[in-house]
């Protein structure tokens, strides 16, 4: 089972295809050789990908891997295989809270058809209001929060189901 990572909101499949003579990984069907040199005192390491050197700092925090590759930062979503498999059945249906907060407004209504990008909820966290939009088209199957209710990070806010064919 390949590992599924997300970068900029798009999923990517990664897997090992060979380990000798060089580690070879497949990223969305494309093969890359990888050599990891040991990290220096500073924690920076050189990664040779298809022989091209990259300077990398990285760390794991929660379900994100934070990477500084050369001069830019990236935040990549990663879940352990068991966690990913447990949610695999309905990925994209569940909208969960990225952070703890409070519900300011509920625009979604049960059984309503929504398009990708439609505003579903407005939440407030850290003094900022954030609009939660539908990640894809679907039908609002369940709402797990109400106006002025609070929630914790990771809480299920809303579930969608696929539109009937």
């Amino acid at each position, binding site marked *: *089972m390949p590992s599924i990572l997300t970068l900029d909101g798009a999923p990517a499949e990664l897997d*090992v295809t060979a*380990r000798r003579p060089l580690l070879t990984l497949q990223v969305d069907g494309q093969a890359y050789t990888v050599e990891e040199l040991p990290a220096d005192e500073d924690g920076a390491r050189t990664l040779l990908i298809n022989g091209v050197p990259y300077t990398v700092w990285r760390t794991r925090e929660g379900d994100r891997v934070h990477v500084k590759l050369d001069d830019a930062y990236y935040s990549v979503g990663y879940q*352990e*295989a*068991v966690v990913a*498999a*447990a949610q695999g*059945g309905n990925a994209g249906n569940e909208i969960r809270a990225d952070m703890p907060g409070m519900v300011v407004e509920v625009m979604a209504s049960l059984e309503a058809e929504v398009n990708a990008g439609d505003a579903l909820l407005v939440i407030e966290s850290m003094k900022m209001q954030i609009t939660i939009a539908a990640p894809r088209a679907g039908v609002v199957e369940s709402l797990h929060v109400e106006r002025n209710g609070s929630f914790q990070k990771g809480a299920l806010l809303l579930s969608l189901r696929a539109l009937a064919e």
Partner: protein
Amino acid sequence: MARLSSSIITSSADFRRNYSASKARIADFEARQRAARFDRPARDVERLAKQGKLLPRQRLEALLDPGTPFLELSSLAANMAYDGESPGASSITGIGVVSGREVMLHADDSSIKGGAWYPHTIKKIVRCLDIALENHLPVVHLCDSAGGFLPLQSALFPDKHMAGRIFRNQSLLSQQGIKQLALVFGHCTAGGAYIPALSDYAVIVRGTGAVFLAGPPLVKAATGEIVTVDDLGGCDLHTQVSGSCDYPAATEQEAIAIGREIVAQWDRPAKWPAQRDAVEAPYYDPDELHGIIPDDIKRGFDMREVIARLVDGSRFHEYQPAYGTTLVCGYANLWGYKIGILANNGVLFNDSALKGAHFIELCNQNNTPLVFLQNITGYMVGREYEARGITKDGAKMIMAQSCSRVPKFTVMCHGSFGAGNYGMCGRAYDARFLFAWPNHQIGVMGGEQAARTLAEVKMRQLERNSGTVDQAVVDAVYQETLKAYQEQLSAYYSTSELWDDGIINPVDTRNALGVAISASLNAPLPDNRYGVFRF
């Protein structure tokens, strides 16, 4: 170690004839394998898909670490039994890498009659667990079986090495601290229910997985109780109430992911430190093996040419190169592992038998695993050789070989006839693994020899009884014997009966032995001890 120098001329007519014949054999072998693996009635495949089930090989691929080998065992078991009703003996066994650990895998093939166990299925599972026991390999069971195939119960239930042996072996594995994990994808009925129950860990898929001693129909017949599969032995019952299974999973993928994480928790007991050097690919192309194996069972060939295409750098240290030359002995490395090779280059004489016995003792002293490359017509017969003690010299070789403490591996390269099979570590001698090439033939004697012998016996019998010999009767005996032998001597018959651990393409021998040797090192080496040699 010096590289062997090959005297094969790849452009020779002989080589090319052998090559194309071998390639045709491989094509036939692969076609049989493909059919055994994938030809399934459409309705069975549809039924599994409807249940949301993966096919057993899809489960295996998902469970295995990507980019690693899987050594499948006995892929053509039962290929000549039950009119082909149980391809692969309705199960898949083999050694693979899961979460970085070498494990034995056993999967029921639910795409064949609901994964029902035929007698050969049981033989295959028992053999797989024997291998796990001998080599201290953890086992992952991928369970999805309707239970024993009831019409053949007498051939699968009562005897020592039948169904009960599976659970006996599971118990002994546990006793020896060898871990087992059961992933329950489908039904584990009757005896099959003990597989998860006797495993250290059991994961069960909600909705499709079920474990019970008797399914709903049998329960109704026995007690009149009407109960659903889920209520009787489903995921929630076993993970929440009975405790017969440990982890619930919503999907097969989740069960596999949980299983992989369970295996990732297991310790890695130290292997015994076999001598291992840097790996070097063979200098000579293993593909040339096809041109070396004669198209005719009676034709000999120099086994050094085979060795040169199996071992690291084609390097070989030959022991006693000038003595007992019909048995080639010596050291080589295979995937880095130091091995001692015994390879037949003709019939075994007194000196070759003594050389073999001596070399086996050397390897036992040196903790060097033994690889037997068989192409043997037997020990030399006749008055002269009996007088020289060929029987007691052969016995010495059998004694040394039988009592070997180092792991042994046998490859049936061509022919294996008569007592030579014993000295060269045939199936009875507990080779950790025994593989056969598709051209291989095995029997107490060759087909023509047997036909001639039996025709001779018939002629004498006719002479004794009636004083006359009806040549037509003798000829019929000859032909019948020859035909029966030809069928039973074939590698496909052997492998169907699980007299080996599978037919392999000769070019795969190096990888198969590499995985096998690595597996064998998990079990500790016993002390060096022999019986009484007759001198």
